[in-house]
């Protein structure tokens, strides 16, 4: 098993944290091998932000460190969807935050749209956990990681005072998968 995942959006949307939680959940709390790279612009808000994660059963399978043909993608903003759609393969499962993504090109993807930011803002009290709602949606649909592994990773990575809210957001996202 080898899966390429790309997560992209604007700085401030928690893209890198989302990628990091997946990496920790896969490497530390599951039996997978992982390679993760990050890129971001100098601005703390509004610039480009991207995480690329490759998850595999063995270290040998990892190979090239960057995503070439993503099996799974999360786009939290429209501009980055346009910019990085070339890295997403046909048939990929693509998650997008419909709060900001209004148009999706016809690429032969399995599209999963939900208003992550709106859900976070209205139901959880802050748009800052939109990334965890998206993560829940991703995990619920792809079953790439177990709920337990992700929750442990959230506890491991996220600042203590934010853990509960992040876990709540993650579980809210899981719920989107059954819709």
């Amino acid at each position, binding site marked *: 098993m080898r899966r390429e995942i790309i997560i992209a959006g604007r700085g401030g949307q928690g893209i890198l944290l989302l990628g*990091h939680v997946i*990496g*920790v959940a*896969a*490497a*530390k709390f599951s039996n*997978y*091998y*992982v*390679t*993760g*790279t*990050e890129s971001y612009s100098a601005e703390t808000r509004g610039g480009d932000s991207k995480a690329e994660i490759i998850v595999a059963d063995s*270290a040998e399978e*990892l*190979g*090239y*460190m*960057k995503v*070439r043909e993503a099996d799974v993608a999360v786009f939290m903003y429209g501009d980055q969807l346009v910019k990085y759609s070339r890295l997403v393969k046909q048939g990929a499962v693509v998650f997008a935050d419909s709060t900001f993504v209004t148009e999706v090109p016809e690429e032969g993807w399995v599209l999963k749209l939900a208003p992550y930011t709106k859900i976070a803002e209205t139901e959880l009290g802050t748009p800052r956990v939109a990334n965890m709602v998206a993560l829940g949606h991703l995990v619920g649909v792809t079953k790439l990681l177990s709920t337990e592994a992700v929750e442990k990773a959230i506890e491991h990575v996220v600042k203590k005072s934010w853990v509960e809210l992040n876990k709540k957001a993650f579980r809210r996202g899981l719920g989107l998968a059954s819709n």
Partner: protein
Amino acid sequence: MRAEYVTSNIAIAEGAMASGLKFFAGYPITPTSDILEYLAEELPKRGGVVIQLEDEIASINAVIGASWAGAKAMTATSSPGYSLMVEALSFAIITETPLVVVYVMRAGPSTGVPTRSCQYDVFQVRYGSHGNYELPVLVPWSAQEAFDLTVKAFNVSEMLRVPTVILSDAMLAHTWEKVIIRNPSELKIISRRKPEVPPQEYMPFKPGEDLVPPMACFGDGYKVMVESLTHDERGYYSPTTEVQERMIRRLVEKVRRNSRLIIDYETYFTSSAEYIFFAYGSTARSVYALVKELRREGIRAGLYRPKALWPFDEGGLKKIASEAKRVFVVENNVGLMYKEVAQVLRDKEVISVGIIDLDVPSPDRIKEVISEWL
């Protein structure tokens, strides 16, 4: 033993601590600073000292001093910082000071693109200092290997009393991967040999059979000499051709004769391979992916990947490439190690595939370049 999701930089810091690092001195520089930052947090908890100095020159000199005080010592820098360290590195070579330098390559010349990657410094790392010497250089291709080779770098450095370099690059430095971090009790950790003779009989530069002199440090009760002028076995300045030749040959030979302790490589699909790829560090990751693709297409390609760049593994390379029709040397520069490979494989067609990429040459780009030779 524990599994963590960390960058190669952090894996190096962990590997150093597992090896018994007791002193780290450094000056912040992209893309290496997080080694200093991480160790500043972690090493004091394990009884070690971390000091940020005014520059790279002071840092490596402090590391030399710490090593002579008996501590396992390390510094970490990137390309421009190494340029500043090479003078003191030469001092460490002639005084046979065990120490480890972490060298994370970044795109130069000069300040170039400070945050981005390259493999431009594979010769500078080896030949940057003045004098005639051998310098072991280990070159990881993953975060796990960064941990493993850091442990090895300390062992080599301590065993042979020679500065040893871990050569990484900006791409690897900030790539997160699963790393199995072993405890010291799960690792083979080697420390410098101490003198076994009484102090009055001790000669600080009299080698053992392995050509390495046992090392007395300050405070051990022996007469300690740290002499940067050409010296005899007693450590006394001796400006004669005879002593110079003996010293130079020993400094070189102690590494060459013990090169089996340093040299290591991995091969992938090389048996019956028509095309052998030579690649190292982050670029080898791309080549590995490409070789797998070529195999799927029915092209008999294989990868030879040195884990030690210096001393150069002539024997291993010759053996692996003996049946190959063509050898491609793929690297993130204009073709540097190519010269070394071509010299060793004189009877082969060796093709330089030098690709400049601020991250790492992609498998697609490499394939584009080599396709006309397949």
